[in-house]
């Protein structure tokens, strides 16, 4: 089995020759290559080269066309603050609670901000990888993008104070996700992963997820499937036990679970869905390789009976992670 075949089998809970390794390596690929993060995040060619080098170095099963969760808000008009070796922060949000929403236009991914560079990265990765490894695009989910357009405190207060207006912005964010995600598929990504950390029950109650976010996620995933996505992958970190049961209704084929959720619990809540997780991301920075290897082996064993598992971190592996820790995680998939 090659990497893509292995992941495809895992998605439908079929037998695999070994557990697929999908460490969430984004900015770490730049660190590994000795490239400044700020350059990696703005140059699709450089991003693709670093991802391919990381894949060759660690021997895992996926490459990510992913910059950061500020790409979309920047494309709409927010001003970002870039630093040499950190992800950018929003210095000035494009939306305010009272602004004119009728003027909002979904940006063209071929032209707006860094989106064209991200699409270029997806295209290069697919040309280089073909169908040997999974080429994953990435984007911010509707809730996260809404918080990135307004600022998280403003967005959450707006949700309470003016739900109608909040939902209009949420709908705009969902439309943007559809356009950007389908552009990623057209550029070569096998699928776009939706990252929606602001949809976590740590941020909003499960009822909020069910009533406001689930319908939008469903709409986005339907569009991705129609556009030819290999599968629908949802990544929400934090204590997600209360919302995992809604994932099948959203059309999720691969569900991320973080270290807060026990593997047994994730399997019970989503018995027919492929799961990816859940090594604590900070441990890749401060633990020893033996500890990572042991944690990874436990996870591989926990899913041995059921299958449908991609070994991963619960959240992004920090750029400054120790390479030997990532290697230890990948080795666990090979029984090492």
């Amino acid at each position, binding site marked *: 089995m090659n990497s893509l075949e292995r992941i495809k089998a895992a998605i439908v809970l079929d037998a695999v020759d070994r557990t697929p390794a999908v460490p969430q390596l984004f900015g770490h690929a730049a660190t590994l290559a000795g490239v400044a993060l700020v350059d990696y995040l703005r140059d699709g060619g450089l991003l693709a080269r670093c991802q391919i080098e990381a894949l060759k170095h660690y021997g895992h099963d996926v490459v990510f066309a992913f910059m950061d969760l500020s790409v979309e808000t920047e494309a709409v008009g927010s001003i970002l603050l870039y630093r040499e070796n950190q992800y950018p922060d929003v210095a000035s949000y494009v939306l305010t609670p009272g602004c004119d929403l009728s003027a909002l236009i979904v940006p063209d991914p071929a032209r707006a901000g860094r989106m064209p560079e991200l699409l270029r990265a997806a295209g290069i990765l697919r040309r280089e990888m073909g169908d040997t490894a999974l080429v994953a695009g990435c984007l911010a989910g509707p809730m996260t993008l809404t918080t990135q357009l307004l600022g998280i405190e403003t967005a*959450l*207060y707006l949700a*309470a104070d003016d739900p109608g207006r909040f939902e209009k912005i949420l709908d705009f964010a969902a439309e943007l996700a559809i356009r950007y995600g389908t552009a990623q598929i057209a550029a070569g990504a096998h699928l776009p992963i939706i990252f929606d950390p602001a949809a976590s029950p*740590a941020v909003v*109650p499960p009822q909020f997820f069910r009533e406001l976010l689930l319908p939008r996620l469903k709409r986005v995933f339907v569009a991705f499937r129609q556009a030819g996505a290999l599968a629908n992958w949802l990544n929400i970190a934090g204590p997600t036990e209360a919302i995992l049961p809604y994932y099948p209704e959203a059309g999720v084929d691969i569900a991320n679970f973080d270290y807060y959720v026990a593997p047994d619990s994730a399997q019970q809540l989503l018995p027919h869905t492929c799961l990816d997780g859940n090594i604590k991301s900070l441990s890749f920075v401060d633990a020893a390789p033996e500890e990572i290897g042991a944690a990874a082996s436990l996870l591989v064993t926990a899913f041995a009976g059921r299958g449908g598992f991609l070994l991963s971190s619960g959240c992004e592996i*920090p750029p400054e992670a120790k390479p030997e820790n990532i290697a230890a995680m990948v080795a666990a998939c090979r029984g090492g």
Partner: protein
Amino acid sequence: MIDPEMNKLVDTLLQGDHTGALAEAKRLRAAGVAPERIVTEGMEAAMSRLDDKCTVESFNLLEIMLVGRAVSAVANELYPEGVPLEQGRATFVIATLEGDVHDLGKNITRMVLIGKGYRVVDLGKDCPVENLVNAVQREQADAVLVSGLITPVIAQVRKVKPALAERGLGGIKVVAGGAALKQSSAEALNVDYVAETAFDGAHYLDRLVRGEI
């Protein structure tokens, strides 16, 4: 038991109705109720109920922010210049350290502590350790709280206790919290306590103030 006179204030606070809570606090003041009573029997009672509801498994920012906003509105009405030092309530200095501009966790913790009647000095985000230590000295703080969402800030967190010790403030307790920091341990961060949630951190500080730590 909540004093019936405070029922409406507690209810509006818990509903996150900041305009209703503010109106009720003004009504109580006009009726001659002392600010201290509104804090202890109104704000603290509401925070205690929220605390009971917010377990680690059931803790979300939205609900706490709404209650926190209402509590802050009432606190600002009662003490427009901030809680005076001479009230004898414990003082805590809180900041998001240099290199991290994500301050939502800090803001929520500040609101929870204000709701519990503490005096909180908020140094904002991207705060140098030196400013933090200066504030501890100036404000005669009883403890320091630092919040961090991203891992690069960990190096700054580790500097806080040595910087306090250099000024003869080595006995001041340091509490860390936030998505990145809570994945680590107190030992690894060189702090006294790592809080899982804002309420968890507040419980630690309650014990500290009661002399149990």
